[in-house]
């Protein structure tokens, strides 16, 4: 079948969306943007195609009357098992890479011991992986780097202690290897892995196996790919396959909410205010000026400064009872102001509430610069997931622009890729 793909190469994550010729979304994929943009694009695309397969399975299984009510469970198991197969494959790759990286002066005479320790670590990692992908298990992240990394730290330390070896020995090897593994293009044979995942699920009825095998037999043809995002110039695409993220964001928001007229996107490195017409065509846009003050990265910096996780900031700020006024959205000054406030005895949640307000005030200025906010208003980007930021935004939009419908899509992170995929459809179909 024809697949139209949009890839959004962002500064922190890379997203892909697969669409059919009728602009129906078939699959979405996301990965961390790494130093190698080609790989990031390939991985996100593969993830979106995996997701597309799952959509096709759902369609196939949904057509089987006796499976009514149990499709979600079947698909859940299938995906879980597939992820496990995929994880093990990458783990093998990581082990091979680690072994190959036991070299250099610091390992002289200890190569064998290190190799033995690593072998033990990977054996346990494989054993433990079953639990990671057990039914109902919660995983902190879907990125291999995060999953393997967390386990490696834990298990590696234990094994090293048992073997009387300093943990840094293998940590050094790991650090080098994970980058290599991460930057290698993803392994192919998605269909094979799904078949193995299917087998993992035990003896399944023909009613399940047949539609899955049928769906797997449908070739996914990459009809047209459009790249966008900050790293788009580094994509190995011909020029006509590249669209600015402004256009893609505008069109993506339009695809989610056809009545959108104003779009705000707060990403890691920039903030964009976009006005679109009823067809999703961009009429005007403004981005933060050269200074990246008040972008997503600002919150990341604050999180580091407070020694907290990025996702913990919003919830803590929601507990605030007395917002502290923070005047600086400069990432550098904000740290100083933060420490100053803490020293003055202000509460962390109150300071955080102020910081969230500061970032949204900055976004409000960009919106004002782009011509204000018109109904409907769509908020996208990583910061749209932060409840404290959203609360401030709602307040300020109401104060400045009155009653405007505010759309925030849980899949808003895919807005740019969605627009890109739509462009891909239009390039071929129109």
């Amino acid at each position: 079948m024809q697949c139209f793909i949009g890839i959004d190469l962002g500064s922190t994550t890379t997203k892909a969306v697969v669409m059919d010729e009728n602009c129906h979304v078939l699959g979405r994929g996301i990965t961390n943007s790494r130093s190698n943009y080609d790989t990031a694009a390939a991985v996100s695309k593969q993830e979106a195609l995996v997701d597309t397969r799952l959509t096709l399975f759902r369609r196939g299984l949904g057509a089987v009357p006796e499976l009514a009510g149990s499709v979600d469970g079947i698909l859940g198991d299938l995906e879980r098992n597939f992820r496990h197969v995929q994880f093990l494959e990458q783990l093998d790759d990581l082990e091979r890479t680690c072994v190959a990286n036991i070299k250099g002066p610091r390992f002289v005479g200890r190569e064998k011991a290190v190799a033995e320790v690593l072998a033990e670590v990977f054996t346990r990692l494989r054993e433990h992986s079953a639990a990671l992908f057990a039914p109902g298990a919660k995983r902190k992240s879907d990125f291999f780097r995060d999953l393997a990394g967390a386990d490696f730290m834990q298990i590696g330390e234990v094994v090293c202690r048992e073997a009387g070896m300093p943990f840094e020995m293998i940590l050094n090897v790991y650090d080098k290897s994970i980058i290599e593994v991460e930057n290698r293009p993803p392994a192919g044979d998605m269909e094979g892995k799904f078949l193995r995942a299917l087998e993992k699920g035990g003896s399944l009825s023909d009613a399940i196996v047949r539609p899955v095998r049928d769906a797997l037999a449908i070739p996914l043809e990459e009809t047209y790919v459009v790249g966008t995002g900050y790293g788009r110039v580094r994509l190995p695409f011909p020029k006509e396959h590249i669209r600015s993220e402004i256009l893609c964001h505008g069109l993506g928001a339009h695809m989610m909410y056809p009545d959108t007229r104003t779009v705000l996107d707060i990403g890691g490195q920039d903030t964009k205010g976009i006005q679109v017409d009823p067809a999703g065509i961009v009429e005007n846009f403004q981005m933060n000026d050269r200074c990246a003050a008040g972008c997503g990265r600002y919150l990341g910096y604050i999180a580091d400064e407070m020694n907290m996780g990025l996702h913990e900031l919003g919830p803590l700020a929601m507990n605030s009872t007395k917002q502290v006024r923070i005047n600086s959205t400069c990432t550098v000054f904000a740290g100083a102001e933060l420490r100053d406030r803490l020293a003055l005895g202000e509460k962390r949640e109150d300071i955080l509430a102020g910081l969230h307000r500061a970032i949204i005030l900055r976004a409000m200025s960009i919106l004002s610069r782009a011509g204000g906010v018109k109904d409907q208003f769509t908020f996208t980007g990583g910061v749209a997931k932060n409840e404290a930021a959203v609360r401030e935004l709602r307040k300020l939009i109401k104060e400045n622009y009155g009653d405007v419908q505010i759309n925030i899509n849980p899949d808003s992170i895919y807005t740019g890729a969605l627009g890109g995929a739509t462009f891909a459809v239009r390039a071929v179909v129109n």
Partner: protein
Amino acid sequence: MTSTAEIIDRCQALFEDLNFSAARAWKAAAPGRKVIGFLPVYAPLEMIHAAGCLPLGIFGGGDQMEVIHGDAYYQSYICRIPRSTIELGVTGRLDFVDGMIFPFVCDVIRNLSGIWKMMFPNVWSKFFDTPQNFDPEIGGNYYIHELQELRAGLETLTGRKITDDDLRRSIALYNENRRLVREVYAFRAREPWKAPTSEVYLLMRAGLMMDVAEHNRMLADYLVAAAASDRPQRDNVRVAVYGSFCEQPPLNLIKSIEMAGCYVVEDDYALVNRFLTADVPTDGDPVQALALAYLGQSVETSCKYVPKEEDKGRFHVEQVRKAGAEGVIYATPSFCDPALLDRPMICGRLKEANIPHIAFKYAENSGQMQPIREQAGTFADSIKLWS
């Protein structure tokens, strides 16, 4: 007798009121009254006053105002005062202001005058370009005509003539104001523990938002109350602050310098009411008198050309000596062209005169005071140790 605390409380309330209720009340008190806003650093307030209008000092939004729309008009490398001034405008806080005067300070304020014309076409606004040639025959003649043009503009706005006698009366009131202001500054230089700069500053800022006669009474009251006050003298060093004539530091910054062990005995905060250094004659042609005072008896500051190289920074050195300051803090707003371009020259002259100095930057909404306290404190300690 009114206490200093009572006077300063009133000043602080005026200073903090971003809705300018007092000026609104002044306007509402009699039909036909007009309010004329003016920006730093010098405007002939006598002319506004003689037109029967209230001159209202607009010195940005301080650190208590959130700026949303104002930021939409400026790049990150431009100072803050034009942003907050626009915010004051677009949020309706200046909707009672009938005219605006944008004196020459720099290109940013100059261009703000054009923005104002486009944004508020119904407000009478004027870019007021003071002469940079100080020969009475050349710059003087030009300036007299500019003042007459200002006078005509105000007359059209108010619908009433400004007579020479009106102008003379206003000049007399402002002479009195300047005399009292100089007295407060002299008092502070003598007994800085009795007139903290955080108070003197508020007293001056409040004066730029009220009728001059009322401010004159207030200044006189403050002088009496401050002299009678009993406050402990501390082992602080005596400093002059320069570079702060346009965008104002937050009050907390002014306090931080004092808390760090410095008595500010001389400064160029906001300037306006100390811009002319001597009485303007009330006999003869009042417009000519105003013009000549500007040419011959005004401070040296960064937005005025200094015709002779050897005179550059002389004013600062003399003022430091006169006020008995032991050092200078050159505190400028970030991105302030006038103060920052002048800094190497002024600091060079201070160095030649063996006057210790430090420099730092601020914005009207600076939030972190720790580095300021740190620098001012270290500066104070170094003066104590080495001199």
